[in-house]
């Protein structure tokens, strides 16, 4: 796999879809390991994954937020969140983990146009 592309992963699973949200993260990590540039955009109910304070009722599993916070260490520094999705849910960027970078819908669209491939989860 010699080519280096810019991949955009769009994550819209709420954290209650624990397995799918984690598998989406696994796909992002796999792409990063294969030395692709990966940006992640959280939108729709996916923005809840980034909530700073959230209960975890799933048992003994590692909280998803801790894994998201580790993404920059694996070469995925761009964790973007759609501000319109936040507003629709009564959230603001201050409610989210520090690593989340708010983007407007127009900026998100521009990113979708600019990247080479979109992974939709």
């Amino acid at each position, binding site marked *: *796999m010699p080519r280096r592309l810019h991949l955009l992963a769009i994550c819209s699973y709420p954290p209650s879809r624990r397995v799918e949200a984690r*598998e989406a993260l696994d796909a992002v990590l*796999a792409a990063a*390991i*294969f030395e*692709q540039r990966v940006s992640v955009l959280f939108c729709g109910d996916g923005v809840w994954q980034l909530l700073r304070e959230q209960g975890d009722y799933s048992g003994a599993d590692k909280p998803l937020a801790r894994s998201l916070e580790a993404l920059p260490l694996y070469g995925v520094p761009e964790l973007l969140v759609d501000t319109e999705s936040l507003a629709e849910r009564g959230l603001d960027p201050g409610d989210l983990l520090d690593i989340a970078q708010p983007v407007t819908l127009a900026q998100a669209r521009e990113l979708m146009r600019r990247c080479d*491939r979109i992974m939709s989860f």
Partner: protein
Amino acid sequence: MRLSLIVNAAPEEGQSAWSAYHFARQALADGHELYRIFFYHGGVANGCNARRPPQDETDLTRLWQALAEEHGLDLVICISAAKRRGIFNDAEAQRHQAPSNLAAQFTLSGLGQYTDALISSDRLVSFGG
């Protein structure tokens, strides 16, 4: 055009897996190349040979197998998603002391196959999720 598909839903989970199948057929009929079809999330159930839909319903697993046989398709099931949902090939079944139930024509492999499909195809089309 060289296409890859990712199928994220089981046959009984809405329309997505069926849409993927019909899309694949049409793409081949239109002369496109299908580089890989990757099954992820609940979509791994497409490659389970232990599914038994009622007699008056079509079995999508058989349709995938027939299409793969006819066109030599690369049907890849994500190994970690499959193990989580109880789908094993012979080797994994032996390793985990579980029944072997991966349908013929499907192979178990890792997420690297998904990344490779992303990079090596002109378009990746996602179904379900």
